């Protein structure tokens, strides 16, 4: 009964964090054990679902037994389970980290757990759902929880960052929902499979895709709607930032990929695909340059997210149906996975630096390599993925995308991939150089940080290396169990 097993894992992936969130809200003093129990159960369920899909192929589940088009269908394919598993590892690490990092601040921690678990549940729904309106509901749940996590520490910068995030999210919801309305008016369905069969190139389809894409650009902080990300992600508590920057923005890009390659495969013109690639390029350049100019570690890391999100937009021109489409798509998804691990590790490392020094001014972290060598090493390992150097997962991803760029004769995207890597190298070394510099006359005041937290951060950073060293299995899972059509080209 493989179908029943798959459905049980899927229900657990959403039901457990939702139930945990409600429990943690009702029993604020018990938040930490509830968070740990939920994290362990979701981690096990996601590994179980990965194994199920690897063995038996795509798993489906109709919510409440109501089949599409009337009901809502959840479908776990290779793409979905890889992102679910990445989310589970990152969120589980953030769970343990939250306990060590926020232990002394009970009221904040009590507010943090329900929001964190709601966010996790919403992300899992986004990865499983194949219904445009159900995705809207999941996106709203994820935005609400994410904005609240940004505001959880309650400082002026946090409230400002959260407010800006919420206003962008409002714009995103409005345009996405209008896109859904146009789609339903034009094609009479909300389910991906029914829509994919009904949608054909027409003004209504183009309008719906354009509106939904604009909305997802705002939710995913894609250039030019990225302005909210750095203040918000740098103001959240470190474990929150890890999930926000590693997964939440990726979930919007994930919906974008599903829409462009699954529902509207035949609709986008070549010009539209090139436009997305061009916006991605601007994101890479703009994000990297601003990362270079930041004085604070968390802001630098947040701007690097804007840059890394830009690469994902190169999937759209590179996987347009010509040669190299599969490589481009796999490479882009792989970049999202490796970036999830690396960026979460960097934000948690920044949290440790903040704990140790009481500030995160990059200029003043001399001696960090001496006092907290494991944390600085984790930053360096995670930096490998951002630069795209071997043996990291970022290298595997960019290698695949480079191959696709050359195979399809679009050399200009290869230039973006290589140039972006150079810029990333500069901003990663901007962190490492002061960290390795000897402290001046007066020894700096480093408070001790828990060794367990340091090792946890290093393990997360090592996750992005493992993705580079053992790329065959995830890529096979992605390519054999994901049904996507790459454009309408012959």
């Amino acid at each position: 009964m493989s179908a029943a097993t798959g459905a049980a894992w899927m229900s657990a992936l959403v039901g457990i964090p939702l139930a945990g969130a409600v429990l943690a809200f009702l029993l604020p003093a018990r938040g930490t054990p509830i968070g740990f129990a939920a994290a362990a159960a979701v981690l096990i369920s996601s590994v179980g679902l990965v194994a199920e899909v690897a063995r038996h192929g795509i798993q489906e589940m109709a919510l409440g037994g109501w089949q599409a088009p009337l009901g809502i269908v959840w479908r776990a394919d290779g793409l979905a389970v890889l992102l679910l598993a990445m989310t589970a590892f990152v969120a589980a690490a953030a769970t343990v980290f939250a306990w060590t990092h926020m232990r002394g601040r009970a009221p904040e921690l009590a507010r943090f757990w329900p929001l964190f678990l709601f966010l996790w549940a919403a992300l899992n729904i986004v990865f499983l759902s194949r219904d445009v309106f159900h995705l809207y509901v999941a996106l709203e749940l994820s935005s609400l929880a994410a904005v609240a996590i940004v505001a959880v520490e309650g400082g002026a910068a946090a409230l400002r960052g959260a407010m800006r995030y919420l206003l962008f999210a409002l714009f995103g919801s409005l345009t996405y929902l209008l896109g859904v309305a146009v789609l339903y008016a034009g094609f009479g369905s909300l389910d991906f499979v029914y829509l994919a069969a009904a949608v054909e190139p027409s003004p209504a389809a183009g309008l719906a895709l354009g509106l939904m894409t604009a909305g997802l650009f705002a939710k995913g902080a894609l250039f030019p709607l990225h302005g909210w990300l750095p203040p918000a992600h740098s103001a959240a508590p470190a474990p929150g930032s890890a999930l926000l920057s590693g997964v939440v923005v990726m979930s919007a890009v994930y919906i974008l990929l599903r829409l462009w390659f699954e529902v509207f495969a035949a609709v986008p013109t070549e010009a539209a695909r090139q436009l997305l690639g061009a916006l991605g390029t601007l994101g890479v350049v703009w994000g990297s340059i601003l990362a270079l100019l930041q004085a604070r570690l968390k802001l630098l890391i947040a701007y690097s997210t804007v840059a890394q999100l830009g690469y994902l937009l190169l999937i759209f021109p590179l996987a347009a149906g010509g040669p190299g489409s599969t490589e481009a798509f796999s490479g882009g998804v792989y970049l999202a996975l490796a970036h999830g691990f690396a960026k979460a590790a960097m934000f948690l490392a920044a949290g440790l630096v903040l704990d140790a020094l009481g500030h995160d001014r990059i200029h003043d972290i001399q001696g960090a390599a001496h006092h907290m060598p494991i944390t600085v090493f984790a930053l360096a390992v995670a930096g490998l993925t951002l630069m795209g150097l071997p043996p990291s997962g970022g290298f595997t991803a960019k290698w695949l995308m480079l191959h696709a760029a050359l195979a399809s004769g679009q050399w200009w995207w290869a230039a973006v991939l290589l140039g972006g890597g150079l810029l990333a190298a500069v901003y990663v070394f901007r962190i490492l150089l002061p960290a390795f510099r000897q402290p001046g006359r007066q020894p700096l005041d480093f408070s001790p940080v828990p060794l367990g937290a340091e090792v946890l951060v290093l393990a997360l950073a090592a996750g992005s290396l493992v993705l580079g060293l053992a790329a065959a299995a995830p890529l096979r899972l992605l390519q054999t169990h994901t049904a996507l059509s790459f454009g309408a080209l012959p």
Partner: protein
Amino acid sequence: MSSALLFTVCGALIVATGLYGLFVHRHILRKIVAANVGVGGVYLVLIGGSAVPGQTAADPVPQALTLTGIVIAVSITAFALALLQNLHARTGARSLDGEGDP
């Protein structure tokens, strides 16, 4: 002009008004109100756009979607207002300075 088409066109105009307000106003409360105006227009497009000409019975799906949408909009508005109240109490700010924000 059929009434369904009238609803759709008015809905589109209301959405445009809402988006305009969201981008142009500086006061955050005005932005929140503008977003609410805009989302009302989306419901009109949803209901009017899916009406089939010549058929008297209405399609229940867009109505269910609108109902869900209203619940979500109410929760987000409540949250946005609470956040604004906190921000105002803490910093006295009524707007976020910086150009180009929605």
